[in-house]
């Protein structure tokens, strides 16, 4: 389709400026042609290029993108406005996102020859992982994440939430995959494509985690972990090859960041983070990342390791994926809200039992211990009540509480939050970190205020974005506790 001129109308929209012309499509700013006000946000129209000779591939991708965009909601995708009849006037009108593509940070680093600070890499990665998790929760796998397809909204230090673009190669678990064919082919972009995508697997959310790993690798080192292979053989390398560790490029990449990046880039999907929410949690608290041998490697895996992996990869073949939501729900993030005072041993014991049950048998379930304390607990003048002292006291209490919980290799993180409104703090933490289930005491957290306002557990249960388990202390221990008194 020829380039539209400003002032032209198409399917009820008046075209303003052409803001982008990519290989596949033109993007225009648009308004309603009848003069109606914008729907509360600026609008952009995407019109696929369909010059003669353009394959059906382009238009199928556009069809896929239209279907998926129309199904998605939330702050991490542009809002869908309208789509034109694919056979007549193919176009897609959506929210125009104000922000910078991730590519901007890479370009800036290249131009100024200043590496991106690890803390910035982590913040960009956390924003990206949260956006990707929101997609997976809606049964969609992006399959083509790259710095050009991620826009970061303005925010603190220039980094707000991530918005994902370009769903032309994406997969929706509820829809037939129009891009699939009987001979499963690799669908994606070579640089960022996960090993399982190379053998034709579609719909595995962990493929997106691999792509995030490639993006983080480049943000941290300025290099691409697997280069830009142009052949099928080159593409298959990542089925077994471990990339050069980021610290070998830049020794100032911290071990925690290398740990996270290399775990995202594991050739076997099962060894990566089980969901993007798990990854976001790690990026949000670098100091608590559990370091393994990945973190301090300075060279790639040995010849023997590669050889072993090569043999395993030779047998890697296409298999269908379960629904994305089913897969990410298998690895819950369990949050325990520990009361900070007035708590009996029986309650702590019952909370421990309930947390253990919520973690279940999944080795990759993770536990977040959260204590919300009142701001009046700390003092800037009294050294005994200094913030760091009070916090470390509560962190130590959390660690004590953990003893006796069979955790295996599961990841645990600890948080002390100061907030005068514990219920809101708990809900906000759960929402911000995509918590799967909250475990808390039924009669803790401000029990004494019960008479004149709704109790905190009730407020949490009503407003939380996930399942809430309200734990009652088990009777025998209550009796034991009273004997102790």
């Amino acid at each position, binding site marked *: 389709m020829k380039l539209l001129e400003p002032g032209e109308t198409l399917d009820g929209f008046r075209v303003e400026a052409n803001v982008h012309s990519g290989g596949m499509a033109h993007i225009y700013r648009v308004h309603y042609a009848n003069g109606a006000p914008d729907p509360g946000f600026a609008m952009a129209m995407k019109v696929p290029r369909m010059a003669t000779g353009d394959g059906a591939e382009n238009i199928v991708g556009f069809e896929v993108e239209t279907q998926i965009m129309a199904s998605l909601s939330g702050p991490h995708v542009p809002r869908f406005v309208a789509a034109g009849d694919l056979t007549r006037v193919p176009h897609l009108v959506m929210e125009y996102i104000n922000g910078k593509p991730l590519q901007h940070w890479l370009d800036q680093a290249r131009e100024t020859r200043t590496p991106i600070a690890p803390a910035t890499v982590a913040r960009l990665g956390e924003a990206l992982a949260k956006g990707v998790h929101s997609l997976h929760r809606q049964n969609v796998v992006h399959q083509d994440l790259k710095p050009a397809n991620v826009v970061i909204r303005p925010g603190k230090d220039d980094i707000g939430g991530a918005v994902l673009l370009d769903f032309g190669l994406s997969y929706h678990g509820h*829809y*037939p995959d129009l*891009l699939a064919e009987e001979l499963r082919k690799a669908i994606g972009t070579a640089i960022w494509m996960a090993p399982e995508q190379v053998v034709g697997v579609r719909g595995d959310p962990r493929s997106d985690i691999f792509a995030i790993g490639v993006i983080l690798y480049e943000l941290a080192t300025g290099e691409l972990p697997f280069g830009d292979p142009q052949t099928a053989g080159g593409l298959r390398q990542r089925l077994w090859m471990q990339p050069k560790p980021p610290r070998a490029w830049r020794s100032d990449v911290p071990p925690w960041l290398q740990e996270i990046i290399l775990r995202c880039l594991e050739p076997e999907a099962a060894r990566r983070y089980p969901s993007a929410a798990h990854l976001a949690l790690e990026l949000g608290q670098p100091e608590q990342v559990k370091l393994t041998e990945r973190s301090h490697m300075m060279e790639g895996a040995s010849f023997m390791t590669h050889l072993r992996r090569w043999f395993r990869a030779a047998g890697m073949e296409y298999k269908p994926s379960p*629904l994305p939501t089913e897969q990410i729900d298998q690895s819950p993030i369990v949050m325990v809200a520990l009361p900070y005072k007035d708590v009996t041993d029986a309650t702590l014991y019952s909370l421990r039992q309930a947390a253990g049950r919520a973690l279940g048998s999944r080795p990759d379930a993770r536990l977040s211990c959260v204590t919300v304390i009142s701001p009046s607990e700390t003092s800037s003048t009294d050294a005994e009540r200094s913030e760091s002292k009070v916090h470390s006291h509560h962190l130590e209490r959390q660690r004590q509480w953990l003893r006796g919980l069979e955790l295996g290799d599961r990841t645990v993180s600890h948080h002390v939050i100061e907030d005068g409104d514990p219920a809101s703090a708990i809900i906000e933490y759960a929402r911000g970190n995509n918590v799967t289930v909250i475990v808390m005491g039924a009669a803790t957290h401000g029990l004494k205020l019960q008479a004149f306002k709704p109790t905190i557990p009730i407020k949490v249960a009503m407003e939380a974005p996930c399942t809430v388990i309200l734990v009652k202390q088990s009777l025998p221990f209550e009796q034991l506790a009273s004997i102790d008194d």
Partner: protein
Amino acid sequence: MKLALLSDIHANVQAFDACIADARARGATQFALLGDLVGYGGDPCAVMDRVMALAADGAWLLKGNHDALACVPPAAPSNVLGEMTAAWTHAQLSAAQRQFLDALPLVRHDGDVVLVHASVDAPERWHYVRDERTAGDSLRAAEALGGHVRYVFGGHVHRQTLYYYGRGRGLMPFMPTPGAAIPVPPHRTWIATIGSVGQPRDGRPEAMYALFDRSAARLTFVRVDYDHIAAARAIRDAGLPEFFAERLSRGL
């Protein structure tokens, strides 16, 4: 227009009532019953009363192999599963009900939609559409009927599958998630088996049907909870083989 597609009711009045009510609640404006209204189940007369009332209201009806069998049951008692209940069903039905069944057509062609009980490829032979190849046979036969056929819907296999064209040359199967409204735009061709109302066979007891929103070009495969214990009791009370009662609770 919202077209409710129900097939393989198999004299299960509890499942039938539940699906009809569910479809009405979802705004169905046209009903299509794709055959095997009777056979296996314990309430053929009650189902036929409802079917004939729906037909009088404009529902589209097709004949299935069990309907044909109930009209002309095999002379000698048979061990074939499908034929075991035919003579009993035949005896239950009134002459008017049998006559009604016998007069049903095998295929219905409405614009870009073709409806059939089993396969459009020799519909009287009741071929199973159970994979890409047999789905292709049915689709090609439907396209040979003329017009611009885009949608072929059938029952008979008691499972819900949507066959579609990806980027390759052949049809591909897709297992739908119940309740998800799947975009099925008319510039593509689709062939679906919509499952069984009265005797699901995919390991779950919930009744199956499908809702096709023609104006929005969306197809929803639906599962409906119903009183399968009562349906099984009706089969036992009728003295029909226990297997037909027992399978309802397990979706076998």
